């Protein structure tokens, strides 16, 4: 699914020294894998996530997504890939305020070239257990419910890669467990998931853990016995 080869990202802030956010990252993520990228804040994990999600481009190195080199993609093609093949989940949910759950979930369909979009949003909301909350606004939902709406949004175009940036960072333990349960079930049905976190407990729910420190991958190992989250278990 994902092959990173010697990825380096250097920022040049105006009037400052160039900062190396990522240094020579080489990483392979297989189809159907569930990988946690773990590191402290400032370690470069968000930058790596942005590059994986085609929101940012590396300064050097090679990134192949599903066997295709991403360096040659036009911005339009990048947008199309983000729309069709990648689903994003953020720490702060990024739901549009004053907008119903269903409309939020349907947002990616707005930029899709699908002819018919009927029923897709509802189906996605049902798949995260919120079929009865379609007309609720974000302000009327709990944090956990909001994050589930955001997951439904990431799923609506049926991508095979999910990228989650600290998805449980703003949630209580119980909601975090529910979210991890959803991710595990999505992973079991074949989706590749990459999850950024600084929480070891959360990372232990994944199949593999990649540790990142000061822009370098320092470890990439399989979790021997992943924790299993059950919906409503806590």
């Amino acid at each position: 699914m994902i092959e990173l080869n010697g990825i380096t990202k250097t920022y040049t802030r105006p009037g400052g020294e160039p900062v190396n956010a990522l240094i020579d990252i080489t990483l392979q993520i297989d189809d159907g894998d569930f990988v946690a990228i773990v590191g402290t804040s400032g370690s470069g994990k968000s930058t790596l996530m942005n590059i994986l999600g085609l929101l940012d481009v590396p300064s050097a190195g090679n990134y192949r997504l599903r066997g295709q080199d991403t360096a040659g993609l036009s911005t339009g093609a990048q947008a199309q890939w983000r729309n069709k093949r990648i689903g994003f989940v953020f720490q702060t949910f990024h739901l549009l305020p004053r907008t119903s759950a269903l409309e939020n979930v349907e947002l990616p369909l707005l930029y899709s070239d699908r002819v018919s979009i009927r029923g897709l949003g509802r189906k996605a909301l049902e798949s995260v257990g919120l079929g009865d909350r379609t007309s609720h606004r974000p302000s009327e939902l709990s944090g956990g419910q909001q994050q589930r709406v955001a997951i439904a949004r990431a799923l609506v175009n049926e991508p095979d890669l999910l990228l989650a940036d600290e998805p449980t960072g703003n949630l209580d333990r119980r909601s975090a467990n529910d979210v991890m349960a959803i991710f595990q079930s999505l992973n079991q049905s074949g989706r590749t998931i990459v999850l950024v976190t600084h929480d070891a407990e959360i990372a232990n729910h994944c199949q593999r853990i990649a540790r990142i420190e000061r822009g370098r991958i320092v470890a990439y190992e399989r979790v021997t016995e992943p924790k299993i989250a059950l919906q409503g278990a806590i």
Partner: protein
Amino acid sequence: MNTMRLVTHSAGMMGRHKLRAGFMMIGSFIGVAALTLVVSVGLAAERKLLKLAHQMFGESSLMIIDGGGHMMGGPRNPGTRLKIDDVDAIAKQVPEIESWDPQQGLTASVRRGDLADTAQVLGETERSEHVWGRPAVQGAYFDDSAVRSSERVALIGQTVATQLFGNENPMGQEIQIGSVPFRVIGTLEPWGTDPHGMDRDNEIVVPISTLMRRLTNVDTITGAKLLIAPSAHEDQVVKSIETILRERHGLTADRPNDFSILTASEVRKVMNSIKRILSLYLPMVAAISLLAGGIVSAALMVASVNERSAEIGLRRAVGARSEDIRLQFLIETAATTLAGGVAGILLGFVLAQMGATKMHLGAVAPWSAALLGIVSSIVVGVGAGLWPAQRAARMSPVDALR
């Protein structure tokens, strides 16, 4: 990428930010209302002025007015020297003059039994109908023998007829102008109100000789209208008239004219300057208020773009291209200003109709004003949206999401 889906979605987004949308709408609402009002009234006034100028001057004519000075309607030296003989002499000596009508007038009270009216009484010759182009709609003008023998006959305007006769037929009836009895021999074509607010139907036309002898008791006239041949050179005719009049009035070279000559081309010049004010300067003032509305809209949208950077980043993340973001903000701005503009057209039109009625300008044309209002609100909307939309489109998704 389904553009219609995005357009509908973007227009709907404005409803989520009611306060901002409200302020933006008010901006274009006021601007478009002002523009519609000014342009509608301007067009109606212009039409009215042109009609009036045509009534007064026709294709080729000029006026001699007693007293010096050269401004239409400006202060003139009190002249008391222009006489009927002067005009007759000019008409005889200048071959280009086809017809002429000397005029003298006064404001007098008119009575019939207990009914009274204060009307403008004009003394004219039998050529008045042809020279002024105002026919009698009932009866007929007096003839030259009536002028020679100073007959007490009168043609009355619509207002006078209504005031003194109501629904009765005024023909052949007797009225008193001042204390002199006149017989009504006709009614005048209705002319309505002129731009000074004078009711041109509150007029009575009597033979000029009768008026001068029995009502004003003077031997000078206020002026005369002369019709000249269409082929004649206006400047030459004016020169000839000037020479004749100066000689008859015994004016030496160092004395200014004690009369003024008003030509059609001079009136056209005045008309053009009025037209410029009506169709250029006034709309420009209104356009400035619309521009101010547009700037307010642009500023509010820029603030909105900054405030919604997370939304922009998210949209990029789920597949929006920067063109889609640009289009969205452009449509949001344009849809809002257009909505305000349409409401502004309605208000402007209602105000224009009220104003035009009050100023007796007749009906205002709805379509040109509505079209102008819609076009200008679209232009302002797109204009105000361009900068914020560009700003939103240029945001890098990574920065926008932070």
